[in-house]
């Protein structure tokens, strides 16, 4: 790199002005040695030396494998680990910008204690010992007064795991992550109910070999996960046909053969008509259905009424398109995918939508087939030996470390211990909800309403309740109800501005973390090691939790001296070692076609439902009296002058957590409200106008309009994650409008997950 002293710049700048103001010199003014220099060979820049360290990404929840380059003890460039199956060596803009998490000027740099009112952002720096003593004391005080269940732990990030462990050791069942109740929950439940399997956190789809993608609002190029996005692009390049179904023309739509601008909230009606056609016209995989599927007669009777003509006025999609798409898919089956959205939290019946997708994929016989859904490899790394947790049914998955619905899909309270406050997995409340990850939306409600029992302490590890589309008032009330709130995070945000104690986390480039284990076609275990020493007075989450555990009498659950020791201990149980993992940053089990695609090799598929078959009308729903979830229900529609409010992602931001990143913020300084030209003309609004947008509750604010025919005339859209107001986020604060303020926070009626898509808004010129 070239360096220049400020004084050089000033003098040369000044000279430039001087030249322009004076007459030109003649060429004879050129010194002889300078002339010689022009002709001499040019100086070539050379690549400076660097070190490489292994890691996996923390910028989003896909977790790509990384090689982090450091020079002079500072990480400066993040590359992909080509061996890692989740990204095959590529890294997106978010991943590349991880450098500016470590070096972010606005980072939380030392422990702090709140000295003003909650949310006022008045802080006193304090030493770690004092902060940890205070946290241990306050948490133990709440336990003595209300019992261990009064602690809620909310985590969002790869480093949340030790906080879950600490909370479980403390004795509370109330640990939760947004991944289920605010995101993928209904999709996972639907697949588990129908097939006893799901798509994992990383989409076990054979994208490269798929011949037809029916994208149900899955904006795979902008809600971007490297390996999935690249696999889909490869599949399209290999000739797959793509039909993209979404009220909005996304970048994914622009790569598709056909865009169906479906009315918001009506995917279920379209899918039911697809099922109708597939059954009526005999387009399903008859051999697969007769061997592996039950409930066809019951389903046939139920979808009789859901004709393509029936759905046309509901969805706005012509009946003939439904018939044509069903036939086109049938011709290419089983190498076809009805591609589910990841976040399926839109309406009061997301379960019906999710089941319809699982049913269609099953009728096309895509399970365990090339170009369909494959059976993943797994890398089993046993957990370290720990004492029993005081609360019986909080067990994390040993296989994947997270997001494993099969672990406890219907957690019960056989031990007679206290139920989860959010009702996840609790009989009579939300039995379909995952008890490991819980219903974060319902947990906030329980904290706000102090129901079903007092919840008085909060421990958060990352996340931001205000911007994940729960109601602001609920979040604020919940936070103000706490006797004590401790937040551990790398960056400031609105939620942690309410904390009593802030514990600054080391960034993911400055620390070890627990192993990443997973299964795609290959199984793998991957390493995160520090690429540099912490820049500030921060600690990694394992070290924080171990230090807290000592002060809280819970050290038995944190037996290792260091994270590296813990990793080595875990790896040795699997016959490996940390030294071995450090060679390539990842150790894999090879892809095994017979295991991944058994039915391509004359082997049998396995569907671990209660009956051992794919259940088109799931027996578990019958037991719960919920088998009507498959039936269509009318959805809210905008009144005259109202619009459906929708939101979504852009490829260079992750949720609401990257808007303050200085390497990303320049790409989109603020979010815009997409409005169709017809609607704009009617309202007298032109491109670039500022408008007021309000929902039926009167919530809302100002935002700039983008007039575009890339959206339906009855729908508006904006990019998620803007509208921050925490002044510590100096780059992001005050930019754009928060979609979370406008999204709905009603419930999915079977699962209890949130429904964010039912909000209607009005627009007026500001």
């Amino acid at each position: 790199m070239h360096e220049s002293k400020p004084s050089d710049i000033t003098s040369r700048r000044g000279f430039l002005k001087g030249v322009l103001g004076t007459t030109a010199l003649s060429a004879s003014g050129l010194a002889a040695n300078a002339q010689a220099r022009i002709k001499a060979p040019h100086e070539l820049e050379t690549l400076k030396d660097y070190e490489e360290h292994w890691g996996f990404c923390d910028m989003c929840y896909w977790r790509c494998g990384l090689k982090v380059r450091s020079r002079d003890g500072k990480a400066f460039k993040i590359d992909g680990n080509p061996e890692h199956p989740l990204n095959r060596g590529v890294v997106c803009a978010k991943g590349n910008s991880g450098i500016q998490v470590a070096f972010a000027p606005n980072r939380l740099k030392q422990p702090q204690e709140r000295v003003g009112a909650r949310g006022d952002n008045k802080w006193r720096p304090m030493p770690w010992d004092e902060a940890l003593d205070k946290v241990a004391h306050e948490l133990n005080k709440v336990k003595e007064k209300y019992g261990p269940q009064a602690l809620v732990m909310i985590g969002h990030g790869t480093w949340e795991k030790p906080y879950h462990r600490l909370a479980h050791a403390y004795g509370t069942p109330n640990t939760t992550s947004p991944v289920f109740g605010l995101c993928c929950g209904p999709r996972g439940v639907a697949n588990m109910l129908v097939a006893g399997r799901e798509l994992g956190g990383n989409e076990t789809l054979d994208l490269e070999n798929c011949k037809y993608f029916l994208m149900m609002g899955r904006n795979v190029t902008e809600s971007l996960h490297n390996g999935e996005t690249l696999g889909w692009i490869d599949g399209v390049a290999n000739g797959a046909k793509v039909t993209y179904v979404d009220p909005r023309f996304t970048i994914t739509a622009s790569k598709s053969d056909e865009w169906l601008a479906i009315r918001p909230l009506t995917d279920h009606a379209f899918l039911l008509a697809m099922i109708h056609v597939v059954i009526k016209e005999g387009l399903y995989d008859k051999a697969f259905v007769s061997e592996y599927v039950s409930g066809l007669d019951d389903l046939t009777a139920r979808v009789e009424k859901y004709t393509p003509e029936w759905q046309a006025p509901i969805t706005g999609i012509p009946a003939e398109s439904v018939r044509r798409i069903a036939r086109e898919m049938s011709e290419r089956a089983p190498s076809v995918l009805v591609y589910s959205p990841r976040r399926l939290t839109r309406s009061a019946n997301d379960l019906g939508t999710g089941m319809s997708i699982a049913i269609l994929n099953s009728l096309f016989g895509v399970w365990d087939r090339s170009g369909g859904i494959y059976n993943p490899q797994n890398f089993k790394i046993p957990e370290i030996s720990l004492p029993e947790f005081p609360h019986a049914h909080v067990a994390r998955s040993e296989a994947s470390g997270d997001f494993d619905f099969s672990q406890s899909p219907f957690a019960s309270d056989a031990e007679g211990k206290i139920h989860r406050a959010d009702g996840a997995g609790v009989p009579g409340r939300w039995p379909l909800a995952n008890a490991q990850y819980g219903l974060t939306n319902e947990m906030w409600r329980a904290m706000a309403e102090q129901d079903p029992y007092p919840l008085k302490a909060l421990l958060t590890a990352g996340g931001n309740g205000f911007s994940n589309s729960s109601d602001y008032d609920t979040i604020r009330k919940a936070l103000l109800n706490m006797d004590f709130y401790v937040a551990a995070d790398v960056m400031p945000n609105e939620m942690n501005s309410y904390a009593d104690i802030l514990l600054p986390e080391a960034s993911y480039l400055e620390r070890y973390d627990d192993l990443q284990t997973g299964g795609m076609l290959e199984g793998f275990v991957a390493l995160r090691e520090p690429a540099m020493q912490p820049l500030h007075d921060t600690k990694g989450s394992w070290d924080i939790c171990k230090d807290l555990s000592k002060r809280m009498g819970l050290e038995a659950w944190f037996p290792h001296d260091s994270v590296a020791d813990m990793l080595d201990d875990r790896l040795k149980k699997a016959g490996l070692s940390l030294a071995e993992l450090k060679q390539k940053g990842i150790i894999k089990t090879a892809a095994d076609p017979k295991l991944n695609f058994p039915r391509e090799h004359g082997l049998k598929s396995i569907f671990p439902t209660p009956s051992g078959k794919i259940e088109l009308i799931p027996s578990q729903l019958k037991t719960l009296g919920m088998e009507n979830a498959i039936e269509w229900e009318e959805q809210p529609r905008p009144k005259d002058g109202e619009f459906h409010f929708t939101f979504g992602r852009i490829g260079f931001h992750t949720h609401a957590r990257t808007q303050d990143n200085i390497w990303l913020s320049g790409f989109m300084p603020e979010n815009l409200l997409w409005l169709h030209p017809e609607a704009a003309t009617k309202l007298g609004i032109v491109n670039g106008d500022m408008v007021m947008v309000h929902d039926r509750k009167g919530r809302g604010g100002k935002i700039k309009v983008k007039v575009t025919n890339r959206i339906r005339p009855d729908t508006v859209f904006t990019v998620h994650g803007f509208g921050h107001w925490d002044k510590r986020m100096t780059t992001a604060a005050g930019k754009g409008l928060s979609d979370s303020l406008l999204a709905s926070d009603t419930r999915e009626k079977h699962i209890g997950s949130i429904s964010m898509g039912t909000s209607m808004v009005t627009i007026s010129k500001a």
Partner: protein
Amino acid sequence: MVAKYVMLADTTRCINCKACEVACRAEWDTPLGYSRDWVKEVESVNAKGMPELQIFPGRCQHCDDAPCVEVCPTGASWKREDGIVLVDHDICSGCELCVPACPYDARWLNPVTNTISKCTFCQPRIDKGLQPACVETCVGNALIFGDANDPNSEVSILLKTKEWQRLITDEVNIGPNHYYYTAGKTIPVEVMPKLHERHLAGKSIESIVNPLGTIGIGGMMAVFLGAGVKKLVDRRKEVSEKEDNHEHH
């Protein structure tokens, strides 16, 4: 045979995710507000009234007849044998004459070094056998880089097997070495190169040095040259002083 480096962009695989831009920024420590590469997105409406979106990743096109090399008064802007257009930062005076000379807007004055910055096809990386940073990180594998003189290289094979276009107009046809695949779609005018009215610091150079329009082209060139030479003298002095102080790098 000497290499001839080219960049291929398969726009059907580009998703405007900006990974290339951030990777470049990290690799070369680009100051905020500047970038050596970019992605342009052009929205349009087709004959059926449906929206369309075309996405073009871009950077220096490393032209065969590079005007930035021609106009450079100090000889700092140069073209290597393998076709890569580079800036010799020891010689560059930061006079910015090359900035408006580039019809692709690929050059800018780096406020930290006070010399001209641009894409080098990651010359220091490729000289070590690595791929350019943007290519290595590209999420859609939309960017392909290599030696067009090697008949077995991926770029040579792709150049033969697909229909590639270049950013060329009647006005600007200077042999760019950056190729685009659009699956037959016409490249929109928004992406095409444009000749610039030569300007410096927001003012037209012509209006400063030739306010009455009477000097003529030859005289103007003398003025440009003079400006550059004077700066070169100054820059040479700096370099000499640095060398004397053993600070040369």
